[in-house]
């Protein structure tokens, strides 16, 4: 860590304590060893670890001793290991860390898709298959199960057998003509919800149906009441929080080049009655993040919604907005497009004070940047490309991976966010261009 970053980390610690809404506990994007969840691994984290040990408690992300990772106990050795990481400016691995990366690949023309699995210890391709998914597809995981949403013109949900070396399909069922599914959330192993981007209604799916797929879409929940005048709300990503399903609606005018008609909103669905029970009006327009669901930090109790706003012509709108799902209200934009330097295309939150984002400028150059949420500014640029960087994802061990769709040098590129240095020697490429990245974790996580 450079001196200025070290100083900024110290400041952010104080800020994190002061601005309570952003003071996080371990969540989907908290780092191993980062027990005060400020987005950095520092000596204070070792101190917190020691306090937990003394109190006889346990923190998954504090369980970093490589000799006993995941043993369910937090010991002094784990605290010492955290201290070692803080001193050496590294991020330790813990039981929450992933073992591999699953990559949904899509050809440059989006005419062909596939899957690739990449080992995280050496970034070598473990296996890959082409032609097993549609060209426009994204990947989601639920309790260790992998699902592919085959989107525009394919309109289906496909479950992948991860135990099969060729990623065989366990099922593949249509979501209806012209549905264009964008996200799936399962509330049980048999019941799920699918956003149908080109339709006014959210699909409730029954995963227990047989291969004829009869009754697969068991119910439709009409969201047209929240749409703009064209009747289609452009439902995109979702998050399930305490039985309520939050669905981001872009509200674009499909009669006018899909331009935003105003701020987006979050529809709130009661998953018991499968009814629309409310909405959370957003401040940003065009909340859109195709490669991941809505980001929810459980310990914060906050949803983070991002989007580019009006593409190309207004680089200052859009950004990241925090939402309190309990009160069903927005807590405002935590960083704008103007502060990011362009259209926000994807992001990850790291603890309470950091984020990484893909930002596109006026010349359509995409940059992968580190963002300081406390100063609301870009502090580092990891890579830039004239071509699409379609997805970034972060693992608890501090590995940040980006799907670089540069057609002349495509591949997966991974970085250590302790130093922002690239871990991969070059783009990891298996045959088709990466589009969507997901860390393969143990069952129980999304």
């Amino acid at each position: 860590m450079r001196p200025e970053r070290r100083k900024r980390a110290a400041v952010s610690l104080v800020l994190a304590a002061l601005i309570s809404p952003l003071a996080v506990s371990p969540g989907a994007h908290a780092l191993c060893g980062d027990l005060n969840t400020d987005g950095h691994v520092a000596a204070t984290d070792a101190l917190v670890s020691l306090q937990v040990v003394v109190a006889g408690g346990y923190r998954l992300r504090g369980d970093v001793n490589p000799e006993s990772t995941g043993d369910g106990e937090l010991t002094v050795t784990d605290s010492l290991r955290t201290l070692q990481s803080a001193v050496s400016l590294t991020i330790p691995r813990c039981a929450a860390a992933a073992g591999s990366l699953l990559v949904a690949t899509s050809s440059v023309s989006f005419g062909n898709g596939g899957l690739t699995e990449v080992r995280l210890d050496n970034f070598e391709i473990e296996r890959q298959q082409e032609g097993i998914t549609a060209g426009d597809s994204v990947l989601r995981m639920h309790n260790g199960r992998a699902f592919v949403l085959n989107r525009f013109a394919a309109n289906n949900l496909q479950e992948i057998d991860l135990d099969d070396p060729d990623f065989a399909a366990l099922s593949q069922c249509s979501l209806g003509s012209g549905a264009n599914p964008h996200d799936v959330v399962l509330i049980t192993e048999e019941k799920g919800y699918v956003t149908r981007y080109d339709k006014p209604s959210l699909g409730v799916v029954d995963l227990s149906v047989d291969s004829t797929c009869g009754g697969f879409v068991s119910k439709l929940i009409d969201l047209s009441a929240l749409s703009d005048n064209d009747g289609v709300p452009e439902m995109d990503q979702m998050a399930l929080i305490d039985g309520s399903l939050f669905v981001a609606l872009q509200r674009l005018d499909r009669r006018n080049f899909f331009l935003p008609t105003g701020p987006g909103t979050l529809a709130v669905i009661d998953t018991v009655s499968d009814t629309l029970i409310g909405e959370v009006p957003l401040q940003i327009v065009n909340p859109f993040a195709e490669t991941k669901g809505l980001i929810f930090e459980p310990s914060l109790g906050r949803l983070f919604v991002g989007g580019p706003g009006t593409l190309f012509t207004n680089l200052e709108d859009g950004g990241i907005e925090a939402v309190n799902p309990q009160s069903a209200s927005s807590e405002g934009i935590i960083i704008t497009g103007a502060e990011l330097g362009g259209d926000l295309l994807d992001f990850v939150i790291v603890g309470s004070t950091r984020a990484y984002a893909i930002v596109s400028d006026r010349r359509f150059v995409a940059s992968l940047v580190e963002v300081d949420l406390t100063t609301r500014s870009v502090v580092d640029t990891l890579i830039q490309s004239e071509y699409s960087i379609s997805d970034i994802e972060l693992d608890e061990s501090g590995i940040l991976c980006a799907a670089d769709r540069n057609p002349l040098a495509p591949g997966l590129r991974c970085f250590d966010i302790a130093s922002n240095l690239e871990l991969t020697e070059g783009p990891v490429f298996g045959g088709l261009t990466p589009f969507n990245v997901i860390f393969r974790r143990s069952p129980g996580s999304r």
Partner: protein
Amino acid sequence: MTEPRLGFSAARALIAAVLISAPTFAFGRPAAATDNGESVDVRPEIIVSGELTTEYESSVDATGFTTVIRAGEAWRGYRTVGELLGRSVGLRVTNFGGPEDLSTVSVRGSGPAQVRILLDGVALTRAGNAVVNLADIPLDAVDRIEIHRGYTPVRFASSGASSVINIVTRQVEGPTLSSSASFGSFTTVKGTLSGGSPLTGGTLSGVLTVRHTDGDFEYIDDRGTPLNPDDDVETKRKNNDSSSVDALARYVVPLGNSRLTVTNDVFYKDRGTPGNGVSQALDARVRGLRNIFAADWTSEDDRYGAAFDFSYLDEIVEDPSSADTQEGNTSLGLPYDEAHNTTSALGIRGRAARPLPFGQYLEASIAGGFERFLGSYPKNPFSGNDESRFNLAVAVGDDIYIDRWNFTATLQVRHESLWNRFNSTFAGIPVPTDERPDNYDGATNPRLGLRWDPVPALTLKGNLGTWFRPPTFRELFGTDGFTAPNPTLEPESGFNRDVGFIARGARLGPIRSPVLEGVYFDNDLEDLILLVTTGGNIPVATNFSRARIRGVELRAAFEIGPFLSVEGNYTHQDGENRSRVVELRGRELPNLPSDVAFARLLFSQPSFSVAYEFDYQSDVFLDDTENRERRQPGYGTHNLELLFALGGGGFLFKFQAMNLTDEQYFDRWQFPQPGRAFYATLSYENRDVAASNGDAT
């Protein structure tokens, strides 16, 4: 790549074919050829009128490999231009549905935009959209289709393409009247009325064609789940109806030792556009009006010519987004409900040719034009697109004929300049004047052609030359709402090479009038335009791709006895993607089946004929990364045609059974093709009048 590569073995096969056939044919009687180099018909006169024939050479290009399809009798059955082109050697027609739906043609593996399609010499290929829909060309008004594979004759100054297809409409020379009515599967109806009459020293003639089909054929819908056959259902094509009217009027008047031809062709269409077979758009339609006016002056000896033409195209694309609000319906996903695309184009052409000393024949042509494309969106708040192009082209060629050796060398050079102007919006957003991406494209392309007739029955030919295809407005300026502009985009270009032979004879045992053609071609394509996604997640056209396509074209025709005639062709192509795009490099080119064959057997009697046709195409990747799940399996289709003369009054009845074995297959982007279909046509021609006036058909 799993397919065997064509390389030395293919060349060897071709050479072997020459060695085997040439001696045999060399002793036959040469086919008749006219002094002025008119097209040579090596086949005997068809006994029963109503058939189509194919020729092997064209008078306008001595060294090039050409196909001339005589289609003047096509109105006596139910056919389309796409069908005729699709069974021609070296050509591949992509069908986005049935015979009345969008179809495009590529030649020797080129992209459809690299084929310049002309209607009586007037370009149908436009700057707004370089791809011509073959379904917009009414076959019943066509006399012949000239296909110049790989090269452009000098008389077409404006090239802009790898190959040229010139569709020549029917020209009635005297008083005649003919009509036909067709009925068939999928509620298909077609009616044609044509006639001609002397008028004030000239001849006025016209052809009126009306076509309609519901296009509601059945197909297997895999519901977009190719990995799950258990949910497949049989369904009907919806919103696939098509209606069109074409009216061709022509007045030909002699002017001393020359003649003036004034032609006006107006075409109107109204078609449903359901999209692919998985998600059918029930409300999307396209309506269009095209009017082409041309005045063409030609000297009697055809050495001099001048023409003026004006084209007007108005197309309305409807894709109501309200369809998305209905279950079981969908839009095509276009970013507007309605678009009006209008093109106005003016063109002038001139050509001259004269013999020079030492066996030279010098030919030159010039063409200039201006076209303007206006795109508007009536239901949107902004004005739309406004782009224009001015082009000027010059071509000069010199055929050097060495009489002593029967040898011809052709040298050609062609230069074309295009100025493109952008005064428009980008994705609906006005672009400031100082940022408008105007563009200039230009290229000079040479060609060398050789021809040697060592004996009258054998012709050896070879060509090499370059070409270019200028980008379309859409590629340059990104005005479709989906793509970003790239005014620095370079034209596509290529280097074509071919060598081959034509052997012909009069009799070989029971075989009469045999003819055999074999060609090996080897083409390099450079700067191919490819859409890639920018950092702003919007596609932009780039010149990232390259390719090499090699292949063999073989075709033959002969007769056995007086009643049976056989023709067939076979094309083998091997395309290698040499793109700079990493994932494409080394892969097979899409939409390029390695083996395509066509055969037709015709048994003719004075009062009836029976024809059997067989089409074969090997399996092919339809996408550019060899998607095996969407690979089109190889297939063969069988057609049968029965033609009867009804009495002696000029009535004919034709029955056609297409795709007899009900082969089910998809073409690009999961567009289903119709299965078995039947058509019946009753036609009438006032033969006495036609014969007495030397009807050109």
